[in-house]
């Protein structure tokens, strides 16, 4: 692993108004939770980190992965993965092709197929490679989205309320699965959520979009 994810005086503005700002270092395997009401700029902050902030925004400050400054890199060159609230599986590709889309190039077909099959097997979805994503359950789709992100070998992972659409039981299960995976890969993680349970499970620092440290109510 290349090290932690550092936001160095990152400020996101819309016109003159500051939408979000943050100066923080997230160590490998650590989780930073960003909490705030909807519309408070959490998602825009994540967009700025991966380099996909809408053009109306201005972004200043630096984003570092270990010692690598990716502030000026295009989104695809940053190696920062992201999971959205909905899974954003590509509907025209099979489950296996979705995973293959994330795999970096440079391996033989057989090697790529093996990587895909192994990932599915570990997630308890062996034999799903040929399936149409539209036929999967919500929990299965969420898992495929995570696997796809991990297969692209990111240096950090951003989670944009990825659990909010799942029902309570599935949610705890999937959350545990995600954090076990990110820890196994030693990834620094930023989690955006408005659910205190998520924050509790993340067991890391908690901030609001303006970079102020928060304490969990009753926690």
């Amino acid at each position: 692993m290349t090290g932690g994810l550092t936001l160095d005086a990152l400020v996101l503005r819309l016109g003159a108004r500051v939408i979000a700002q943050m100066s923080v270092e997230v160590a490998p395997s650590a989780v930073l939770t960003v909490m705030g009401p909807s519309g408070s700029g959490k998602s825009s902050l994540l967009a700025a980190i991966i380099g996909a902030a809408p053009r109306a925004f201005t972004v200043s400050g630096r984003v570092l992965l270990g010692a690598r400054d990716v502030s000026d890199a295009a989104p695809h060159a940053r190696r920062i993965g992201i999971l959205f609230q909905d899974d954003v599986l590509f509907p025209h590709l099979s489950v296996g092709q979705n995973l293959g889309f994330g795999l970096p190039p440079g391996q033989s077909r057989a090697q790529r197929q093996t990587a895909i099959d192994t990932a599915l097997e570990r997630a308890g979805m062996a034999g799903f490679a040929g399936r149409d994503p539209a036929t999967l359950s919500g929990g299965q789709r969420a898992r495929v989205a995570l696997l796809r992100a991990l297969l692209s070998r990111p240096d950090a992972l951003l989670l944009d309320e990825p659990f909010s659409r799942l029902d309570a039981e599935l949610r705890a299960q999937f959350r545990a699965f995600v954090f076990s995976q990110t820890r196994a890969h030693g990834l620094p993680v930023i989690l955006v959520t408005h659910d205190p349970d998520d924050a509790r499970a993340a067991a890391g620092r908690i901030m609001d979009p303006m970079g102020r440290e928060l304490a969990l109510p009753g926690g």
Partner: protein
Amino acid sequence: MKHGQGGLGGASLLRQVPRVTLLLLFVPVLAGLLGTLAPAFGTGEADWWAAFDSLAAWPGLRRAIALSLASGLVATVLSLAITLLLVASLADTAMFAALRRLLSPLLAIPHAAAALGLAFLIAPSGWIVRALSPWATGWTAPPDVLILNDPWGASLTLGLITKEVPFLLLMTLASLPQTDAARRMAIATSLGYGQVAGFVLCVLPPLYRQLRLPVYAVLAYAMTAVEMAMILGPTLPPTLAVQIIHWMTDPSLAHRGTAAAAALVQLVLVVAALLGWHLAERFARAAVLRAAGSGRRWARADPPLRLFAVAVGFVVAGLLITGLIGLAVWSFAGLWQFPAALPASLNLTTWMKSGPDLARTAGVTAAIALLATGAAAGLVLACLEAEHRFGLTADQRALWLLYLPLIVPQIAFLPGLQRLTLALGAENGVPAVAAVHLVFVLPYVFLSLGPAFRAWDGHFAVAGAALGATPAKVFWRLRLPMLLGPVLTAVAVGVSVSVAQYLPSLLIGGGRVETLTTEAVALSSGGNRRIIGAYGLMQMLLPSLGFAVALAVPRLVFRHRAGMRADLRAGSSGRTAR
């Protein structure tokens, strides 16, 4: 923070594509206009006056001008009114759904084929009279009444309406989602307004803003249509546009000057009509606002209006479809004398005899259509991708340029373009014709593909980039395949536009490039209904094939992808449920 383009070699090239594309539309139109006007102004003042003198001396001038204005304005007003009435009073009914499904096939019918079909239908010896004779009318010979080519241009106007309503309907359906129509209508009706009144007062104002340019295109087209006017229009005198073609193709040089002068008059007429229309828009808008302030609900107007809309919808679609069936029947007809409603016998003689010619002509037509549409689709996709990647926004000016070839009358700039291509020594083969078709095909491909392309869910692109995919990979592997349906539909639209072109093929092809449309119009003067039927039918089969492919291929390719099929059902907008 800047975004590097990450080793994308063609980025700067791609960035220029929108500008180049607009130039491709703008330059031929401008150059053609100048080329056309040159002979009007001749080489000296004497020629200038001579051209306008000879035009003024033509006894039919006033009437031809009046015909152009009247048929154009009446056709536009009625087409727009019918379209809005259909949308306002029939939305969400089974009939509207049926009309909506018919829309693409109806649009694909070239103007010439529609006119020929209509002529077969409404002529005194046509199908309608035959169906009623002699049992209802007592006629054993066709009645001596002037229906086709009537001096008032009524048949022409009817023909124009049957073709322009489907176009405006399509443009309206494309614009409705941006007007928040459903919620506005729900509020209006909950306040007690009638459905049509609610539509006019609450939805029409924002809707019309989107419809304005298509309406202008309809007005300009209706005033200057050549092939429909040649088939259905008056002949004593013909409309100004048809008379220009007569002069243009007259052997003596003097008439070329007259033609150029008339083309200038035609251009001025169109501009004046557009300005007049623009003024009328303000009055109409003020009237709508006044009506909205009056508090009247007009709820009781709904039932009769709905009935009327149903009738008009049936007539418009019915005329087009029955006319085409008439074309088909004539092409297989043996002896078919008046007043028999059906031919005494059916045979394949016409098709066998003209088979080789038809096949060759259809091949040329398809080649031109595919060349022009292929180029148009490539340019449009590049434009839209550049717009997306570089955050360019298509401003109002760009939109006007896009509509320029649809609004500037073909009759005003194609003759000049023909002179220019000759002067440049361009070979007037299939490539030259295809290049000029591109000017007309491209706007329609853009209008067809643009909304779907822009509506494509940006999350897919972000997700792709976060997985390490370059913008190029996102385009080729995600956006393009996911937009397969809309892209193929846009190609089908382009093909249908190209197939329908008459003047560009005739003038730029120099008579050497025969397309189904130039053949059908040339044959229409001969009155042989069987062969006209065969060509008319082929003329509409080709675009229909395009739409069939656009419908079938995505269904086949994505037969195991429920998520994509849901998109197709939702109107191929490419948007996924979120």
